[in-house]
């Protein structure tokens, strides 16, 4: 594995080898796992769900790796495309499975789970995740891609179909909103 320096030099070569070479796949996995996991974590409310979805993303990537074509999209874009698809399916599944009782209506259960259900590694993470959870879906996706997935605005624009400048504007607004939420949180503490 001495060919690996910071990041992945000559990523296309690693991808080509990864279809049949566990060492090459491991290199890709090690490189992308934190970015994919952090992206997922910003999108969903709890760590076990993030674990499950991250596993689905990499399992699907492994299953479809042979059909991946480098001339169509960089590997990272392809992988994040899978991630977005898996998360979209997850939310659709949640909608299908969600059912609340008559009692729940009368006592009004908010759509989002209470903060104490959101497990985080530490208080700072908890605050961040709680704040991110208040964003609209699209803002949350972009924040997750930008800061969890460490993607550039241009990469996000390609993935989402938005213009690069629009991505920048949405991210800026989302950050302002997050900051306001975090400040409010601090005031309450």
């Amino acid at each position, binding site marked *: 594995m001495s060919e690996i320096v910071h990041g992945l030099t000559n990523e296309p070569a690693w991808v080509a080898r990864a279809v*049949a070479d566990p060492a090459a796949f491991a290199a890709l*996995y*090690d490189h992308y796992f934190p970015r994919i996991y952090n992206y997922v974590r910003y999108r969903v409310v709890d760590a076990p769900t993030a674990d499950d979805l991250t596993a689905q993303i*990499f399992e699907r990537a492994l299953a479809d790796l042979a059909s991946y074509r480098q001339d169509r999209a960089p590997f990272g874009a392809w992988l994040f495309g899978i991630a977005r698809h898996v998360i979209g399916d997850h939310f659709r599944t949640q909608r299908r499975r969600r059912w609340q009782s008559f009692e729940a209506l009368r006592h009004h259960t908010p759509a989002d789970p209470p903060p104490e259900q959101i497990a985080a590694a530490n208080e700072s993470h908890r605050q961040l995740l709680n704040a991110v959870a208040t964003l609209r879906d699209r803002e949350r996706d972009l*924040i997750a891609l930008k800061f969890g997935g460490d993607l550039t605005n241009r990469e996000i624009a390609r993935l989402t179909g938005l213009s690069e400048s629009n991505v920048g504007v949405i991210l800026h607004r989302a950050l302002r909103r997050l*900051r306001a939420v975090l400040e409010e949180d601090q005031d309450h503490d």
Partner: protein
Amino acid sequence: MTESKWTDQYDNDSNTDRALADLAQRLHDADFSASRPIRHELRQKLLRRLDERKTAANQGIRPTRTLSTRRKLAYAVVMLGLLALIVWSVPPLRSFAQDVIRTVGKISITDAPTWAERQIEMMAQGTPLPTFPPVTPDPNWPPRLLSLQEASQEVGFQALAPGYMPSGYTLFEQDVFTGDNGAEVSISYNYEATDTKLGQAEPDGSDFLIIQEMRWRDDAEESDWNVGSADVIDVTVRDQPGVWVEGMVLTIRTNKFVISVPGNMLLWEENGLTFVIQTHSLPLDEVLKVAESLSAHPEEIAAQYRATAEAAAAQISAQIGYPVYQPEQLPDGYGIESCQAATDHGLTLVRTRYRKRNSSDTVDVVQIPLDHPSVEHLWALRDAGQARHAIINGEPAFWVSMLIDPGWLELPPDLDLTRQSALIWQMDGYLFMIQSESLPLDTILRMGGSMVP
């Protein structure tokens, strides 16, 4: 923070922008993955799988996604008699008659009892029941949702998709399967209707509709499908002879539970393909409507239904004696799907449903006369302080985000009010509700502001 990769983007020397740059850095630096054991466990699992694949490739074995494997795990596997033939190694309880009563392609429909009927029979006899297949989490969940073109390419024939689907049913699976030993290849569409449930015992068991299109290998053996005591009726489907099986006991396995419920099934053969539609509650006329709408270009069929729906809205207006309001501004890609009227407490309510093209996303507009008792309940929601307030054309409106139970509101259950968010306001002597699972408030507000009779 003195310097960071976000400085250029968010720091313009003002305190505000510096705070944003700090926040950006904080978001970027938060690593939730480091402490998760899954990182190592998943790595090992994937590498093992890659090793197995490598070994299989060296041995000339090509791993396939077979029907038997997927079906054990995927949603709504209908175990039609198949298990009955395998599982029951216990002494026979009685001699079951097993006559082939119809044949559709390679499917022989027999009057042998279904899996559930045999189980009931065994319970009545006091015979110990065999172990029920465990419900395990589906590793392939969620299922694939291929496009019609992708599915057709994969299956090797032109697949057809429905241009009509009854209100409330949403597609969540469109996948391709290969039968055991390659006997058949099929495309399967799975629809779910969350507003119609399978039974009280399974609170999250939604109604289903499954469409299968199968091509059998010439030398494939015939497959017995037992329908037990169900009624078997000859029908004509798409100008072909078909069979309608009504009231058979289907056993459904989902990724969460196994349940036996009454069900109906329509089968026919067309252009060398076998078509099967299975449903829990839809009657023959609705299933026939779905069957007749199957097309390689379902959008064209759907457009015809939309035109019919618009005509229906006009007709309903004429019938009920007051105008049906519709939004002039619809969200991008949305078109009218249906318009229905229901009489309740002597008053007529109208629901118009709009659906996004090629999507399961819908938005409903419900128009309720102000005299209806449910109006009082809706005001109570607003007054209980659970609502966000808005203005539509100068009128106060409120936005609630919760589940709404039609029973509690004393509305007919088929109005499907179990949505999460609704914008509610009063105008021209009516109460209007716009409900959507996916559309944001600003889009709903634009719809509401453009309502015209």
